[in-house]
């Protein structure tokens, strides 16, 4: 651990402070907020994927005795509010005025005295639609003569959004031309949805007298939302307070602004009453940020003896009806270009083409680290495909090509600078934990009996902690985070941070961070977050950026407080501050262990009548804004063991081994919990989760009956281990962990299933590998065998 001067014992497993309220049912989630006179909103949504609105009659709804207001797109247009900015520089309809562009799009907003009446009134609105041909397939959206989805944009003639590329095309083509072996795969990373257990919602309270707008929202980025509300609504920013109370999971889906939030705000302004809107589950699955929908063609080039020479990829990205992805603005395909993964690949090139379709907007969500999920899946599937082609063991092939510790900091062929890692050791720990050789022996025996057992490996490198403000901003807001730390006279501290917990345990981890720097107990540090009136500015919690960015800000603020404390301690001990050393969590006179003072005594002195030296005003507090010098690169090696039932196609995940290097671990208990979550994600995404559509654009996955999520029965007991290479540029060496397992694990599951089906000659099945999809692949392989 390189936490210079960290008090012993501050890092380590520590029961979470936030649990006390949650185990008593005493959390405050958005839907728990109840204000006097509060009204309830409901959204009328489009039943069609693509249609022109030719008529809208709200009169019956408005006449409902319990309805207080009905808002339409036309009314918003009169205020200039019908279209809102997205996080990708596009616009999105708040309420449709001209056309609907996906099934579930917002058309009208009803505000009533209670939830049930608001729903009742939706039934009383009539909308006349003139159906237009829906575009569901991203490839067809690019064909000549395809219906134009975004005819709201003047001059637009196609559904193409952007082309983006990274890497050296010429060098990559040369590497491929000189290779012994080239293997290609077409891979679909299907549309998925993070489906946090709490759906999105808001309580908007516009105070007519003070002009203050208070918004309780399911927001992962309250400060960003405040700035967007200020610019979009034309309200002074100091009159807007965004509160993210307890959040029931986010996983990226609570980063964007949603039309429902704005409707509730407008409705509160119109009615001068607080307005609550909470979407139901089908609204959540059909209309809020989906994830992935990447259609990838990947190629890998290698020598006959298994040295990887090059990688290239071309991707068609389905962004839905509005480009509303949430990522650093100059990275329209996120960090996909980190797709060379954990390997020493001399040449690489990727290109991404994005299109509009008649589907819900989104794309960057679900713990994806801005598309690193897609990148890792691509490279890990290609390496396995190469292993099949070469007849090599997938582990030995990986070991041969993994980056070696002495190559760090490593400059990747697409321009990333990886910070640190010991990839071969991480994979070795995974192999040992799994008992890899024994597993291969068992597999051989079972194959002899006609059983389908598979072992899948995935090595990954994540890219998180966005990011350096010179390169990374969202709509011009640089991705640096503030932190403010106050130590009260009795030595109890309050840390205010801009990032917001949705279950990650910041109230505990961040207290431990400060405690370690100041020699306090974590129980004596209170963490304030999720309230723009009480916290410094920062970009929020997503992309595993809390500990890398806000955590670093907290460290820097704490170290500044410690330096101030040193001056006070010098006055108290009547020595020069230079003669003091920070030892065991106290300022101690060098060479005289008997003379020392801790932060509580110093804090009291700093607030007292003590004659303070020049350069210090009294009290004990400080703040910091942390602008990270680089991203951090957590990494790991995962092994999944599956059994496939040849009769039904059912895949059972028997074991899941995860070895993660997230740098220094502040609270290993919380780190492990984050990994568990991501492994369940990998299992779910690989085997069951998909947001799918029929040819008319009807969403076929609008409920938990159809959008299947893993339960306790599908998940095995996870086996974790770790390696630790501290991040050299982070003040305490931490790299972040929140998304690692979601990024790394789906490929391990897919590789395991394909490995199980190897004897049948199956080389690829797209996710989700449902029993039906697996069974069909088995049947097709058998039919092929029969013919041959």
């Amino acid at each position: 651990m390189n936490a210079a001067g960290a008090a012993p014992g501050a890092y380590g497993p520590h029961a979470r402070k936030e649990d006390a309220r949650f185990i008593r049912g005493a959390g405050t989630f958005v839907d728990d907020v109840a204000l006097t006179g509060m009204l309830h909103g409901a959204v009328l949504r489009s039943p069609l994927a693509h249609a022109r609105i030719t008529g809208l009659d709200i009169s019956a709804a408005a006449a409902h005795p319990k309805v207080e207001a009905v808002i339409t797109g036309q009314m918003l247009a009169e205020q200039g509010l019908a279209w809102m900015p997205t996080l990708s520089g596009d616009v999105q309809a708040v309420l449709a005025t001209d056309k609907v562009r996906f099934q579930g799009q917002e058309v009208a907003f009803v505000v009533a005295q209670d939830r049930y009446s608001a729903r009742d009134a939706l039934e009383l609105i009539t909308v006349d639609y003139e159906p237009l041909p829906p575009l569901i397939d991203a490839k067809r959206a690019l064909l000549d003569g395809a219906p134009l989805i975004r005819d709201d944009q003047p001059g637009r003639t196609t559904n193409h959004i952007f082309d983006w590329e990274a890497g050296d095309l010429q060098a990559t083509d040369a590497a491929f031309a000189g290779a012994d072996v080239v293997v290609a795969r077409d891979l679909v990373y299907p549309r998925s949805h993070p489906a946090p257990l709490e759906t999105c919602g808001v309580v908007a309270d516009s105070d007519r007298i003070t002009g203050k707008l208070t918004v309780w929202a399911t927001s992962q980025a309250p400060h960003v939302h405040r700035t967007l509300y200020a610019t979009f609504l034309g309200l002074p920013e100091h009159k807007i307070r965004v509160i993210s109370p307890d959040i029931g999971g986010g996983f990226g889906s609570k980063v964007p602004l949603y039309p429902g939030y704005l409707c509730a705000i407008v409705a509160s302004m119109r009615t001068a009453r607080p307005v609550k809107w909470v979407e139901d589950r089908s609204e959540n699955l059909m209309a809020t940020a989906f994830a992935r929908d990447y259609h990838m063609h990947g190629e890998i080039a290698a020598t006959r003896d298994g040295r990887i020479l090059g990688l290239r990829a071309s991707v068609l990205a389905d962004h839905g009806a509005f480009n509303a992805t949430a990522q650093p603005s100059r990275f329209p395909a996120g960090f996909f270009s980190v797709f060379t993964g954990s390997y020493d690949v001399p040449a690489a090139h990727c290109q991404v083409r994005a299109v509009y379709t008649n589907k819900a907007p989104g794309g960057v969500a679900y713990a994806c680290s801005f598309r690193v999920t897609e990148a890792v899946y691509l490279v890990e599937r290609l390496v396995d495909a190469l292993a099949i082609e070469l007849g090599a063991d997938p582990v030995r092939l990986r070991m041969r090509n993994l980056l070696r510790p002495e190559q760090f900091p490593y400059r990747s062929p697409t321009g990333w600078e990886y910070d640190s890692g010991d990839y071969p050791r991480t994979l070795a720990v995974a192999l040992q934990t799994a008992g890899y050789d024994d597993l291969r022996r068992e597999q051989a025996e079972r194959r002899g009996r006609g059983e389908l057992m598979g072992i899948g490996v995935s090595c990954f490198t994540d890219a998180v902690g966005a990011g350096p403000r010179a390169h990374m901003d969202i709509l011009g807001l640089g991705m640096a985070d503030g932190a403010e730390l106050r130590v009260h006279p009795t030595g109890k501290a309050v840390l205010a941070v801009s990032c917001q917990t949705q279950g990650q345990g910041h109230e505990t981890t961040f207290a431990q961070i400060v405690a370690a720097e100041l020699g306090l107990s974590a129980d004596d540090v209170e963490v304030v977050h999720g309230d723009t009136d009480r916290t410094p500015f920062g970009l929020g919690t997503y992309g595993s950026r809390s500990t890398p960015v806000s955590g670093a800000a907290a460290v820097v603020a704490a170290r500044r407080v410690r330096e101030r404390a040193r001056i006070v301690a010098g006055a108290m001990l009547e020595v020069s501050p230079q003669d003091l050393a920070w030892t065991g969590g106290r300022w101690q006179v060098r060479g005289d262990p008997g003379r020392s003072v801790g932060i509580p005594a110093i804090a009291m002195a700093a607030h007292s009548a003590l004659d303070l030296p020049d350069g210090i005003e009294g009290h004990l507090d400080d703040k910091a804004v942390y602008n990270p010098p680089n991203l951090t690169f957590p990494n790991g090696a995962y092994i999944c063991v599956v059994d496939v039932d040849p009769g039904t196609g059912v895949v059972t995940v028997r074991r899941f081994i995860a070895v993660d290097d997230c740098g220094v671990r502040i609270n290993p208990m919380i780190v492990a919990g984050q990994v568990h979550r991501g492994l369940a994600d990998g299992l779910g995404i690989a085997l069951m989760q998909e947001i799918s559509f029929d040819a008319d654009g009807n969403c076929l996955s609008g409920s938990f009956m159809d959008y299947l999520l893993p339960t306790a029965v599908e998940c095995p007991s996870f086996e974790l281990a770790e390696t630790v290479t501290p991040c050299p540029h982070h003040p305490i060496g931490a790299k972040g962990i929140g998304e690692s397992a979601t990024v790394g694990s789906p490929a391990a599951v897919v590789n395991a299933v394909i490995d199980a089906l190897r004897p049948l000659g199956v080389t690829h099945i797209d996710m989700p590998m449902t029993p039906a999809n697996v069974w069909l692949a088995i049947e097709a392989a058998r039919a092929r065998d029969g013919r041959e």
Partner: protein
Amino acid sequence: MRITVIVNGASHTREVEPRLLLIHFLRDDLGLTGSHWGCDTSNCGACVVWLDETPVKSCTVLAAMADGHRVRTVEDLERGGVLDPVQQGFTECHGLQCGFCTPGMMMTARALLDRNPNPTAAQVREALSGQICRCTGYENIVRSVLWASARQAEADPARPGGPALDGRGPA
């Protein structure tokens, strides 16, 4: 219609619409917001409470159906300032992250341990299989329930399933 429901030991009489769901009666009418709502289709279990002694998904029960019955919610797990072993287990074993599924998980776990004080990990998984957690991968939820099982056996060795017995609780 007028209903009377004994919730966490206290009797509440209210005028309600016949269609009112029990989850909304608890949350909106009684202000007991510990029980959550997470889906439209009875799949997630964020809303699990007890109707008399049986865990039910309160989004799938009409408030009217609870008329004359007892309901127990997460707010009643802690009694006399003492946490239920299940609550302690969830804290000890990091059985929760966002906390949204937690009340429902704990109510099911409490009911399981009342019927089977010494379940296996597989039995715990089976008991929770009608509920969804998006944060924990279930690993630590299972450990939490097993921890609670061990703790209550320790605290009350005479209890069925305690160490004095053969380790197999009633079916």
